[in-house]
């Protein structure tokens, strides 16, 4: 629904300029049909800055190039729809196949797992829960890093408190075991067990930033449900950056509705434990 675009007009020419700038900085691409959507997402920023038009915002982002402005921008653009146990067969494959294999090859080496667009944290927490259920967290040195480009998402993730929709797929038994109701919330809010939450390192990182990827790259990368917002070109570049920075063997998990088949990548698509995984070997 459009609350703002009626008052603030986004002309085609300004749309194209803003769209290209956003694309360059975040990988996120707005098709021509998404003009109204973009106008809606960005109108509050124009209003809050005391500006009169989207072009003012464009110049601000491009020439003032302020970290804080861009953070607000990414918060406005990011879609943080996520939940526990989402597309769980991939996490299962990690726990049942990839981790045991790694353990037999490098029993003492720390295994780093990176959730590269963690939103409010349900994905890395699902990974940690599943690994804990299979008793891997006590048997193997495992480091879980969760990052996102949105500060707002990370703030929520760091709090570790979740509401109803996040639990739509989590088996009730696990909810009972790992979550406690937040007092006074009438059963609407639940806090994750600190032992699990504390296993995760939360960090701000942009997938389009070479240095961020270099710093966080891991043999196991979960990068799910982000590429749907990217242009094919940014997907291609991101995947190549992963490949270049990943050790061998490396495992890349992407969302079920996403696919790299139109792109040329050096990854090989494998079926592991019933899930599709892109493998660097």
């Amino acid at each position, binding site marked *: 629904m459009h*609350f703002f675009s009626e008052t603030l007009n986004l002309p085609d020419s300004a749309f194209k300029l803003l769209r290209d700038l956003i694309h360059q900085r975040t990988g996120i691409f707005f098709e021509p049909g998404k003009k109204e959507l973009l106008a809606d997402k960005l109108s509050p920023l124009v209003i*809050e800055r005391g500006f*009169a038009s989207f072009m003012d915002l464009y110049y601000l982002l*491009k020439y003032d190039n302020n970290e804080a402005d861009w953070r607000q921008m990414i918060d406005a653009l990011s879609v943080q729809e996520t939940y526990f146990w989402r597309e769980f067969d991939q996490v299962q494959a990690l726990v049942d196949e990839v981790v045991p294999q790694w353990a037999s090859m490098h029993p003492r080496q720390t295994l780093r797992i990176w959730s590269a667009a963690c939103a409010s944290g349900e994905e890395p927490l699902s990974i940690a829960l599943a690994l804990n259920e299979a008793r891997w967290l006590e048997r193997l040195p495992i480091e879980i890093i969760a990052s996102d480009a949105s500060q707002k998402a990370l703030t929520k993730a760091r709090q570790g408190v979740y509401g109803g929709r996040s639990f739509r797929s989590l088996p009730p038994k696990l909810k009972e075991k790992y979550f406690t109701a937040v007092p006074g919330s009438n059963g609407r809010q639940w806090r994750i067990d600190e032992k699990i939450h504390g296993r995760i390192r939360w960090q701000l990182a942009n997938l389009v930033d070479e240095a961020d990827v270099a710093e966080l790259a891991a043999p196991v990368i979960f990068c799910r449900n982000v590429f749907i917002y990217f242009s094919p070109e940014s997907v291609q570049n991101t995947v190549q950056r992963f490949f270049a920075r990943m050790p061998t063997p490396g495992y890349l998990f992407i969302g079920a509705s996403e696919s790299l088949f139109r792109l040329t990548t050096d990854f090989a698509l494998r079926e592991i434990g019933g899930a599709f995984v892109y493998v660097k070997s």
Partner: protein
Amino acid sequence: MNEPALTQKLTSPDEADRYRAVQTLANQGAVSELILALRDESWRVRRDAVNGLARHPDPPGIIVTLLKMLREQHQDIGALNSVIAVMAASNVDVIVPLVELLAGDEADLRIYAALILGHQQDLRATPALLNALDDPDANVRFHAIEALGRLRAAGAVEQLGQLLASGDFFLIFPALEALSRIGEARVASQVVPLLADPLLRAAAVTTLGAVGQTEVVEPLAALLDEPQAPVNEIAAALTAVYDRYDSQFGEGTHIADRTAQAISETGLTRLLDALPNAPAASLPDLARVVGWLEGATTARALAQILSQPAARREVVEALVRHGHHVTDLLITHLQDPDAETRQTVVLALGRIGDPTAVPALIKLLAFDSDLLVPTAGALAQIGDRRAFEPLLELLGHPHAVVRQAVISAINSLGHPEMPARAAHLLQDENPRVRESAARIAGYFGYDECVDLLFAACRDADAAVRQAAVENIVYLEDERVVPTLTAVLGEDEASVRQAAVRALVFVEPRAAWPLLLAALEDDATWVRYFAARVLGQIGFVEAWQPLARLAQADPAFQVRVAAMEGLGALGGVTAVTVLAPFIEAEEPDLARAAVTALGQVAHPAALPPLLSALRHDRPELRLHAISALEQRGGQGTAGALQWTAATDEDESVVQAALTALAELGTAAAVAALVAFTANPARRELCVAALAGLGETQIDWVARGLAHEKTAVRRAVVDALARMKHPYATEQLKQALQDEDTAVRLAAESALAVLGGSSELTIDN
């Protein structure tokens, strides 16, 4: 090299070999070899084979060979279609030879001819295809029916309608489909009887949806009484009829009313039963039809599917139409666990405008922080004063977006206590509240608040000062200019920026010295808005400071704003400053220069814009085209024509052609007419010409005297597509054309437009 050796090369594993062989074969006109190459895996080879065939000197001969190969070697029809399409686009008349084949002795060639004619978008094939409906071979009849449908041959409706009574399923299905495509309402009465046949029912429903008007509503509604009724298809058909009736006569609701009267209790039950399990694709149509039927049961059923995104819009529309009857029902859904659903419900309650919803919405303000903006909006629409106090509570909300929504809601309530309350709130201890109060007080200019507003320009909080400064300019008060002057000397850049923007509303002579000073401000955004405002107030003396800023300001956005200002001032001096920037490295500067030049009416602006049309970067050429289009004037049409003819970038060419159509002058129209000679441009130009207005018809019609046959044919198409009596009149000139193809095109166009004249294919 001789042909056998070349033919062998065609099977070489090396693509380069095959490519060379095809080029040679194309030059030799070796038809069957080229056709073989259509199956090559390399697109380069296939492309040259197609081009080679299209250049062949004996098109009818090629077509016969093609069709024979289709039969004998099971060639792929898609590839052959594309050859024929290329030939047609190169102005080879493929229709006449295909029509001859359709009357020939060999049944399979007749089938292929019918098939291909269906793909040619050329109505001259209609009479021959109609004859083929009596072909002794059933397959030929089948393909002729399909082809008539593809051509949307309105002249075929009678004969296709008669087929429906033939009892021959093999022909009835394609006939229904063809009639759907053609979309002539008069055939509906012949389709209705088929609803009785369980096998044909669903197809007949779809056809009625595609062609029918009021008279199909009752039979479709009655069909819902049958136990095996195709409910989803019926809903889709009814909404299709609604939409067409609505776009043709603006009376869609008439269809909805008739449907509501015609549907029985049983029919209603069938529809409601279908709702929960309907596939997402059918849900919107079902929801719409159910929404036409008023009543508590239907409203409840609709509310149940609110959480399904596929039909949300339709459900909301339907519920809103139920009005206050569904308020209570909707209120219960304000508790839905899904935020999107709650938001939908809030918006619907706002549109219904029933004050009964106010307490529930007020409650929502207190605990649903995600929905504050839409909830405030809904309360504004309902306009009930009970919302006044709860909304005032939110004036201090930390998010500007929420405050803005709350302010406009409060403004729309027009509460009599507001002036007194605003005066009070302007002195609140929360700065966010004072800021909001300044906006409300300024918007209405309450007498009680004037002094307080001026005082707020010196508030301790910068955002309050900013809001106050933005709002005092609407007051007629002698303190405005002195206050703005004082503010321009303050420390906070955001407040100075607001003051500069406010200067637009001040008398220009008073604003001028303040703006000049603001151009020297340390803060980028103060200079930026000062430059903009100078352009807006149009003070000619501003050109010098603006020129300096454009040339030397350290911030790019200020330079851009200064250029815009110069463009608005216009004149030769502006041109001399702006023109050099077309070559600027930074794309924003170059773009701003071009756009600003587009605003300058002086003839001196034309040469630099013309040079921008030759710029290396296509984006800049695109900007130059819009600048020229906006500017108009002498030389524009010629320049656009030149670009359309020579530019290498397809998007630039298209923009130039579109700009010519927008320009719409005699010269521009003549240019578009001439471009139809180029097959690659034909469609775009014909569409553009067809979209021109009544006053331009004469200029289009001049193209009927063009020396090139292809142009005259295209002009016939354009005039026909205009569907304007005067254009149709002009079309008659083409009946005397020396070229058969042009004459035939005009004849069939006139036949379709109801203009007269018999369809003939021979001369």
